[in-house]
């Protein structure tokens, strides 16, 4: 068939204004800067803090800060999956706490079975801990899809329930010693949170693994494409044959599993499991995702952006501590940075749609 569309291309409609190309180039440059703004902010932060404190840019401090970043980054990656579908997960901090207590309990006092107390190897404990997180995430997903509870409410409820379960697990107490023993065959839990490989903490390696896996899933798989479709327009996704409920449950499972993994890293680092582990960490995680350009409305965002967001939050907090800013001011600065990030995100969207319209 022939192209019978008759409207002439608009570009030929008149002579372009002389300064149009330069404006366009400026707009493109500004857009590039806005797209990479998380990186820009990070570089600026590093420059400022290293100017104030000579300790900031040392290898040991960078490694330490990155290790702090790792835990929030893993939480934030999980939350990003949920936010991309247009949902929200407020329960990740509590899930981390619950996973911490489950794993801590298994290592410290074992599992009471009819035949006596059983101890599992560290690998099995880690798998079980992550499974608990995935299970709680699945419960979130079922509440949201089958029972039509709004994600904010469902996961707010789970924030309390999971935290309560964590406290019930030890009756509020701490499992103080997770070193295990050779006799029980459960030594080595410190590996994931304390040890290093090739000079870099294992926790950082794990963050890298999780991030790479998440990037592949979101950008290179049909499932990833469906996540963006569900968040971009749920009705269109349904009509395209996407099983929307399955996608939604899956992202809460991923979020729960990531949260549990972060909880285990934190527990390993501390060498003890206590029920308040990772309290309010959900807020840092959501902040990292938003800072990295993930739209809370869903359908827009990247894993790499989230990781960068986690770096900004982590490097900012540690930098403020290093130069001796009071914790109260740290809070103020962090909040301002998050709001500023959202403002620039909107500027980017405006500029972007302006440019595509002009070239259309």
């Amino acid at each position, binding site marked *: 068939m022939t192209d*019978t569309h008759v409207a002439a291309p608009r*570009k030929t*409609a008149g002579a372009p204004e002389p300064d149009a190309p330069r404006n366009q180039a400026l707009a493109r440059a500004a857009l590039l800067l806005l797209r990479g703004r998380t990186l820009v902010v990070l570089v600026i932060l590093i420059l400022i803090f290293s100017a104030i404190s000579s300790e900031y840019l040392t290898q040991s401090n960078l490694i330490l800060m990155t290790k702090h970043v790792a835990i929030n980054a893993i939480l934030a990656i999980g939350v990003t999956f949920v936010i991309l579908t247009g949902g929200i997960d407020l329960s990740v901090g509590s899930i981390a706490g619950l996973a911490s207590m489950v794993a801590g309990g298994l290592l410290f006092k074992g599992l009471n079975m009819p035949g006596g107390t059983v101890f599992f190897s560290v690998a099995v404990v880690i798998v079980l801990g992550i499974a608990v997180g995935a299970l709680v995430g699945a419960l979130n997903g079922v509440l949201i899809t089958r029972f039509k509870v709004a994600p904010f409410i469902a996961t707010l409820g789970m924030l309390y329930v999971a935290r309560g379960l964590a406290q019930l697990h030890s009756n509020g107490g701490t499992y103080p010693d997770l070193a295990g023993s050779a006799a029980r065959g459960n030594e080595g839990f410190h590996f994931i949170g304390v040890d290093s490989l090739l000079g870099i903490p294992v926790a950082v390696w794990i963050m890298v693994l999780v991030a790479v896996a998440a990037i592949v899933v979101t950008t290179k798989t049909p499932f990833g*494409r469906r996540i963006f*479709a569900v968040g971009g327009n749920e009705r*269109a996704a349904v*009509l395209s*044959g996407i099983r929307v409920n399955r996608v939604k449950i899956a992202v809460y499972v991923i979020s729960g599993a990531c949260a549990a993994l972060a909880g285990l890293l934190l527990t390993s680092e501390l060498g003890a499991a206590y029920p308040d582990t990772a309290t309010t960490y959900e807020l840092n995680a959501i902040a990292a995702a938003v800072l990295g350009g993930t739209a809370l409305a869903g*359908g827009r965002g990247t894993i790499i952006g989230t990781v960068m967001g986690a770096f900004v939050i982590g490097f900012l907090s540690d930098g403020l501590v290093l130069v001796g800013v009071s914790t109260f001011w740290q809070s103020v600065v962090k909040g301002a940075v998050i709001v500023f990030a959202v403002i620039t995100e909107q500027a980017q969207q405006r500029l972007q749609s302006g440019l*595509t319209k002009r070239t259309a």
Partner: protein
Amino acid sequence: MSFLEARGVSKNYGGVRALKDVTFTAYRGKVNVLVGENGAGKSTLMKILSGSEQPSSGEIVLDGEPVVLGSPRAAQALGIGIIHQELSLFPNLSIAENMFAGRELRRAGRFVDAAAQKRRTREVLGRLGQDRLDPDTLVGDLPIGQQQLVEIGRALLEDVRVLIMDEPTSALSNHEVDVLFEVMADLRSQDVTVIYISHKLDEFRRIGDWVTVFRDGALVAHESMDKTDTGWIVRQMVGRDPDSLYVRNSSPVGEILLDVRGLRVPGTVRVDDVSLTVRAGEVVGIYGLMGAGRTELMETLMGMRKAAAGEVKIKGRLEGYGTVQARMAAGLALVPEDRQRDGLVQTMSVRDNILLATVARFTRAGLLSGGAEQRTAEAKVRELAIRMPGLAATVTALSGGNQQKVVLARALLTEPVVLLLDEPTRGIDVGAKAQIAALMAELAARGFGVLFISSELAEVIAMADRVLVMARGRITAEFTAQNVTEEALVTASASDSVLEATP
């Protein structure tokens, strides 16, 4: 007598000239019709005349006086009102609250006078033939046609001297259009200057006094309506002969591809005991008023709604699961009525939208193969002649007709045997309509079955081999291309309009 005039008006957006030296005249006490394809410049001119855009050059003359319309508020103050194509209502507020939004009637200078608002709302609704509508009803609970009437009512509340209507009938049933035209005739007799933008040739010829045609940002013709005919108008709009507008399907008819028996869907808009067949190579149209259950029928066939009874056979095999996935696998694909709401993922690129339903096919070892995706999308873009800045552009950068083709491309990629199209030409311009019509005929020639919904008589008559008429959820009549007439369709569809069906 000229009342509102644009003299030598141009408008540039960046380097693009959307309006080129347009001199347009609207006459007092007349219905001045504006036609032209999408992007022809009519909406831009209306934005200038209603104060929401400023001209790059040229002047506006109102009642003999040059005026500056610096903002919509300034235009309103001069008595220029506009009804936009997109509804700007608050679905969470009642009809009365919507009517007075931003200009609430006050009591004691402070409190909203809800009783007076309701009284005035009732008057206006009465004028629009909607006396049975309760002013307390939430606008979100109204069918879209009645929402449109609320929007019109809002403009009528003010004393307007010029009323601009940008495609107000696109969502109205025939009965509602009649009511609107009565209101327009009423306004005309009160010396109000009406400027009426429309795509529907058969409609505006009934009401218009003057017709002005736009093409590519320029005014190409201005004529008294009774000196024109439909062919002349279409020729001015597209710059060619209208005979080529719709291509009739003439392919031989084959086996039955879709066989629906006794389909029932409960609900406020129901589907009641519908049976129909679509054969290979056949284009079947469903005509009916809004609320007749046409969209509900399509959505049920596609598995988006659950049927209470009835069976659906596709290529002779009963499809009993009734989920979107099962129906898609069996060979149905739906191009929905509301592209923005049900069709497009606005945050995604053109390419990702085209491939959305079939993305799992383009994988190697579980990972998406960018090359295969790109090739498939490019092939579809060529096949359907989709005009776009690029496959990576966001889909919202495309025109309505090209967005529709993106949704169509996605449906075709699922390799359907029967294609369901719900108002496929709604809201797109004449040129794009012709293309969509040609595509439907071509698909039939390739052995697809095509089942489409249309509210436009001329279109359904020109395009369908068989026309089914729906009213109140039932199929009330069936015609062939040989024996169908406009009168017969209207009679069969009008037995129960949407207004009676709404509680």
